Each structure stands twice: as C-alpha cells, then as structure tokens.
C-alpha cells in the first residue's frame, strides 16, 4: 500500500510512513520508522529534528522518491519538481561547478541566466573550478545552487551544514534564508542542530529514537527572518524543555 502521487499547485507536503524497515546484514529485520506523519503547508519551511541515527535520512529518501520500500503515502506539492541538497555535496567530480549546476536544469532551460544565484551564494569566481579543488563550504554552496537553479516546487535538505566550521555554516544559513524567502519554496530540512532549525523554520518536528515517529510538532509564532540571536536562544531553550517533558510524559517504552 504505497503511493506517491503529485497534488495540484499550492498543495501541502504530506508524508505518512506507517512502517519502514530493512533487513540488516545479520538477517534481522530492523524497524526504522513507525507511524510517522507530517504535513507542511505550501511555501512553508519545516525542520525535522532528531538524534543522530534515528532515521532522518531514511525519511528524506522516502520523501524524495528514492526509496519506495515502505508502507504509507507521500503527497508532494506543485508539479513535483524536487530540489535536494544531500549531506555530502554529490557533485560530479569530472564537471566544473557551473556545469554541475547547469546539468541539473531541464534541457529547455539549460541556457538560463544564473548569475544572480551564483552571486548570492558567492560562487561567481569559482564557476570554472572542479569540485576536487573546492573547500567543503564551497562544494556545499554549489550543491545548494544546483537545488535552487531548477526552481523546485519543494526542497529537501539533508543536514546541509554539517561538518562546516561555525562561521561558514552561519553565512550559509543566512544565504539559505534569503533564497527560501525569495522563492517561497516548500522546504523540509533535516538536522540535529536545534538552533539551526529554530533560526530557519516555520514549523519544527521533533523525532524520537528508532523506530522513529514525531514526538511533537511546534509552529513558531515569530516570523522567520525576524528572529534575533536572543530569540533563537530562548526558543531553543523552551523547545528543549518541551522535548524533555514529551519524552518523560510518554513514559518508558
């Protein structure tokens, strides 16, 4: 009973995974997700926050249509054009930065002007370089440029700032904030970094350990982009205590 269909324009992103498991190397069936449900309004930015190894990447792969081996249903917004930033940049090492971005474009748009996008992401002077010549931060920028270049209807981000030093990550978050605000693309970010989620998202989904489900979700009232450092710190504190309550309230499993 799996189904991935595409809804009309401005439809929300809906994800329901009743069960997802895999058979491990020693032949045991491991349950990764059970009874996970989430709904994200069109044009909004959601963040999945959970401990590492809880199956966040599995959920994103299902949402991206890369993994059809699950019970449940996904409903994607718009014409279903998907942009994705993977945890590793996944650029083609044998193509330059610019070629990597342009290759993702549909054939009829392959010559489109991307100067603005490259400028926003500070890639202007690196377009002719090969990925092997880039720092991780620049490679991530190229991966982000690729995801936005196709003008996606929805965007999946898998820990796009992990293992960057904090200054670079902070700049990239600001750039991402600018791009998502400008394009109003429905976005789902996976992260284990609470402050990052609080800075970027409209709605937070907190995930449990395996088998993963949503412990609770929270819409942030302060509009994104207007939250100061202090706001982010205090909201994060509040969230931490809410998560602690939700976990103890649920009792031992």
């Amino acid at each position, binding site marked *: 009973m799996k189904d991935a269909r595409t809804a009309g324009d401005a439809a929300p992103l809906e994800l329901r995974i009743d069960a997802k498991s895999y058979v491990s190397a020693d032949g045991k069936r491991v349950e990764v997700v059970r009874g996970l449900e989430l709904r994200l309004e069109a044009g909004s930015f959601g963040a999945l926050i959970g401990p590492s190894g809880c199956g966040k990447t599995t959920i994103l792969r299902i949402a991206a249509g890369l993994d059809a081996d699950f019970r449940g249903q996904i409903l994607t917004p718009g014409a279903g054009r*998907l942009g994705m930033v993977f945890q590793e940049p996944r650029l083609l090492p044998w193509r330059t930065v610019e070629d990597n971005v342009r290759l993702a474009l549909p054939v009829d748009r392959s010559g489109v002007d991307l100067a603005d996008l490259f400028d926003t992401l500070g890639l202007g002077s690196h377009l002719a370089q090969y990925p*092997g010549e880039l720092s991780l931060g620049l490679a991530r920028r190229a991966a982000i440029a690729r995801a936005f270049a196709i003008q996606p209807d929805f965007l999946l981000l898998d820990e796009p700032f992990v293992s960057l030093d904090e200054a670079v990550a902070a700049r990239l978050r600001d750039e991402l904030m600018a791009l998502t605000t400008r394009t109003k693309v429905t976005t789902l970010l996976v992260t284990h970094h609470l402050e990052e989620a609080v800075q970027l998202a409209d709605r937070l989904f907190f995930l449990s350990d395996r088998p993963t489900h949503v412990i609770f979700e929270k819409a942030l009232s302060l509009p994104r982009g207007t939250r100061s450092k202090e706001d982010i710190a205090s909201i994060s504190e509040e969230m931490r205590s809410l998560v602690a309550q939700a976990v103890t309230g649920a009792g031992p499993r």
Partner: protein
Amino acid sequence: MTKVYSLAVLIVAWAVTAALVQSRLLPGPLTIGTTIIADIRSGELPFHMACTLGRVIGSFAIAMLLGIAAGYAMGRSKTADRYADPWLIVLINMPALVTIIFAYVWIGLNETAAILAVAVNKLPNVIVVMREGTRALDPDIDDMAKVFQFTAFKRIRHIVMPQLAPYLAASSRSGLSIVWKIVLVVELIGRPNGVGFVLGSAFSLFDMASILSYAICFIVLMLVIESLLVQPLERRANRWRRRPA
C-alpha cells in the same frame, strides 16, 4: 630520455651479439634495416601491414562494442550476471587456437571467420573489466541524477561514461595488444595475406631477416597507435583528477 637510453642499450647488445655469432639465424640491426627499407619500397610490407591492421581494427571494434554492452548489463543486473557468468567462464578458458579452428571450420576460411575469431578471444576480457567498472558506479550519484530527473542521455554522457572511462582505457590498452597477437595466429592458420601469413612462410624458409623486420615494424606501429591515440584519450578522460603531489 631514459626510455631512449634503454632502447639504445638493447639495440647495441643485439648488434654486438649478431656480430659475434655471425649466423644467418641472427641478422644484425643493419641487415634488418636494409630489409625493411627494401620491403617498404616493394610495397610488400605496407600491404601486409594494412591487411593485419584492418583485421585488428575490425575485431577490436566488435569486441569492445559487445564487451561494453554485455559488461554493463552484467554489472547492473544481478540476474543477467547469474545467467551469463558461466558462459563468460567458458569463454575465458577457451584457448585462442580452439576458437580460431571452430571459426574456420564452421564459418569457412574467410575474413568474417578471422575477424570474429579474434573478437571472441578478446571479448571476455572486455566484459570482465567493464562489469567491474559498472559495479563500481557510485550509487549516490545515481540517486542525485534521479532526484534531478536527468534524462537517459545525460546519465550516460555525464555520469556513466566519465566513471567508466578508466576501465575503458584499461581494456582498450590490453585489448589492442591481445588482439594483434591473435590476429597474427589467425593469419598464420588461414589467411593468404597479412603479417601472420608472411611470418608463416618466412618460418618455413628459416628467413629470420623477414621475421624480425615484420615483427619490429608491427610492434612500432602498435606503439605509435598506443601513444598517439590511446594515451591522449586516457589523459583527456582524467583531466579532472587532481595530480598526485
């Protein structure tokens, strides 16, 4: 420069040995040089070399095309691999001579048989290498291509080919050298022209000068093809790799 030196040492050693032995069975470099020039003037040598080269190109092309297709299919599909692997093992272990005899007996003593026999000899090696290359294709990049809806053409041109290029280069290099060696055998057994045919008749006359001059000319030709064609293509395919420090 070292290469030139080392070759020079070989030629000098040959000249000295030939001068010491003074036998019709080991002509020196000078004798060979004059034989080669005479054979080129008469048109004999270019004609036989062209015959052989044509067969090399024909069977090499067939072996590469079939081998790439089969190797790719076997690398991608476990089912295809399971079905075709026993055939592959039979092919790998089939002595070249047996394939050649089968081809001549079943197809006839003609060009088709000669070229096919060589192609079949080379084929399993291409399949094995290309299967290995296909298995090494990065699944993460495939996922990326799927998400970004790459067309089949884009996938082959920009994702599969660049990753297979080193395997392609490896199998064409070893391929070229295997193919021309087997072509000579095929010619020796059942063709009225080509370097292999000339070597066969020279052998029956103990004509060492002809044998050496044809062998040398053909080796030189293969080296030229290798360094003017195969190596530049390989370099081009690896342009994006950073040079090891």
